[in-house]
């Protein structure tokens, strides 16, 4: 079940360093929201704050509100572990568990949490998730082989299968294609378009064509200089961002004139 996320006045810190400040954004369900911007402007930091992955780093903290369907994810009584069960994440570099087979990687979310399931149920879940990640046909004959034996693009799709196998409401993707070849990238873009029927998707990308191809809305992050906090400069429908942006900085970045 896809969910809407409302972020208001979010400041994100690493120790005393304010990496991102004053973010207000509303992420629509069943759509793809792309985040673009130059390196170091805090896209990853912002993304990780949405499922409370930010705070696993020592000294990292967040001010402000992230509300998902009326519930403040940073509320005092909210367990970050539960938040992460509902908001899944795919990382920049594919990171399948090296000790597990392809099959075990897919159901890692359930296995690691000791969820008891019948063999037939897990079989179905593995097949469904791998189908969902467009990987089933490539690996169905070698489910018991290690996940690290797959190619980079396959590993990334395995990580997507692993993320969707726990049935999250939202899927966060941090530059999921930056380590992949063009064909794998296209495969993952197609996959995202399919997945948005079921999930809310937020993707960070360095590739503006990719943002233009797949997303409904785009947010542009920028920073004034090194050591300054990153800000959300503009958040608009993707067509508007790429044809007629409100902000001069956005236009400069999109047309390659910045710095």
């Amino acid at each position, binding site marked *: 079940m896809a969910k809407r996320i409302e972020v208001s006045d979010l400041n994100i810190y690493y120790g005393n360093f304010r990496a991102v400040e004053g973010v207000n954004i509303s992420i629509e369900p069943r759509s793809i929201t792309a985040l673009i911007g130059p390196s170091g402007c805090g896209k990853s930091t912002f993304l990780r704050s949405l499922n409370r992955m930010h705070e696993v780093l020592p000294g990292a903290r967040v001010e402000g509100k992230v509300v998902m369907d009326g519930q403040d994810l940073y509320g005092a009584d909210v367990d970050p*572990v539960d938040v992460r069960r509902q908001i899944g994440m795919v990382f920049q570099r594919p*990171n399948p568990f090296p000790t597990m087979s392809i099959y075990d990687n897919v159901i890692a979310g359930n296995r690691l949490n000791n969820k008891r399931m019948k063999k037939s149920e897990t079989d179905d879940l593995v097949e469904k998730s791998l189908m969902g990640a467009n990987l089933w046909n490539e690996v169905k004959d070698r489910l018991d082989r290690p996940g690290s034996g797959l190619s980079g693009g396959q590993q990334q799709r395995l990580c997507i299968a692993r993320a969707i196998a726990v049935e999250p409401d939202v899927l966060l993707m941090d530059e999921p294609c930056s380590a992949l070849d063009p064909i794998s990238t296209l495969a993952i873009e197609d996959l995202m378009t399919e997945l948005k029927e079921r999930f809310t998707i937020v993707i960070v990308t360095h590739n503006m064509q990719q943002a233009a191809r797949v997303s409904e809305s785009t947010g542009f992050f920028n920073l004034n200089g090194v050591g300054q906090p990153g800000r959300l400069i503009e958040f608009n429908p993707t067509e508007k961002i790429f044809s007629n942006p409100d902000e001069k900085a956005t236009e400069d970045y999109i047309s390659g004139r910045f710095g």
Partner: protein
Amino acid sequence: MSTPTRIAPDAPARPVGPVRVQRRLPRFAPLGLYLGGVALGFALSALTGFSLATAVVYGVVLGTLAVYVASRAVEGRRKATDRLVTSLVTTAFGVAMVPLLSLVWTVLDNGLPRFDAAFFTNSMYRVVGEGGGAYHAILGTLVITALATAISVPIGLMTAIYLVEYASGRLKKSITFFVDVMTGIPSIVAGLFAFALFTLLFGGGVRLGVMGAVALSVLMIPVVVRSCEEVLKLVPNELREASYALGVPKWRTVVKVVLPTAIAGLGTGVTLAVARVVGETAPLLVTVGLITGTNLNPFDGRMATLPVFAYYQLTQPGTATQAFLDRAWTAALVLIILVMALNVVARLISRFFAPKTGR
């Protein structure tokens, strides 16, 4: 226009293609030259009244010189330096092997005469002369080392997990510091510590196998902490994050992702830590003592262990001196075999438990 060909001023090289071509010594010439130099060195030493030490020194110096000069003349300066350093490193390796080979040879030579079935099946119970064996000492060593491992591994592993996964700031620094200090504790001090501890608890004159296990643990824990810590640090952070992102709590992530990923290294580290303490003598001498019969209960009186057995065979031979000496050597041989076996086990562990890539 400049060509990519470059001729070193001191290298007799001809520009043939775009890649520099250089004259090389024939494949086995350096070895031949080196051995020739060594032979010359021996001859030189023979002239001045032969002694092995001067012969080896002359030989090595002349051999290295011969290789260097020939290479310098034919191949140029860079290659000659390469050959010079190769000669020096090989010589250093040879020097390092001398004590090892000599040790293995001596122990085999002296230990093999009693390396028989009786040695492994008999104790020294009521044996005052020839015969007897180290059955009781071998089993005692195994029992006490196993007990020490059972004490050290949980403590050491959990300390390492705490240091890598949980601790931060000053506490982490001070634990690391004290672990380092513990690494340097002389083994006799560890023995005296266990002795004092059990004397406080049970009164004077107490001798128990478990005392030895405690003393060995004091030596073993810092080694286990150190090696496990290094191995856990090698587990990529991405795997922890992948697990957190699936909604897995931290402790489950440690138990089910971090430890299985590191299991090969952990097993290797623990095995090498065992190998490190299995031959300790001093701490066992003051805590466990020695008996002639077989006692396998570490909570009841003295036990025999291989190192202490060897020590007493050597220092207190009865009337049949040679029999006692033979047994001491054989005990040393068994100990070396034990340590080597542990090292092999460590390699096997790291081979078989390493994550498989399946490519």
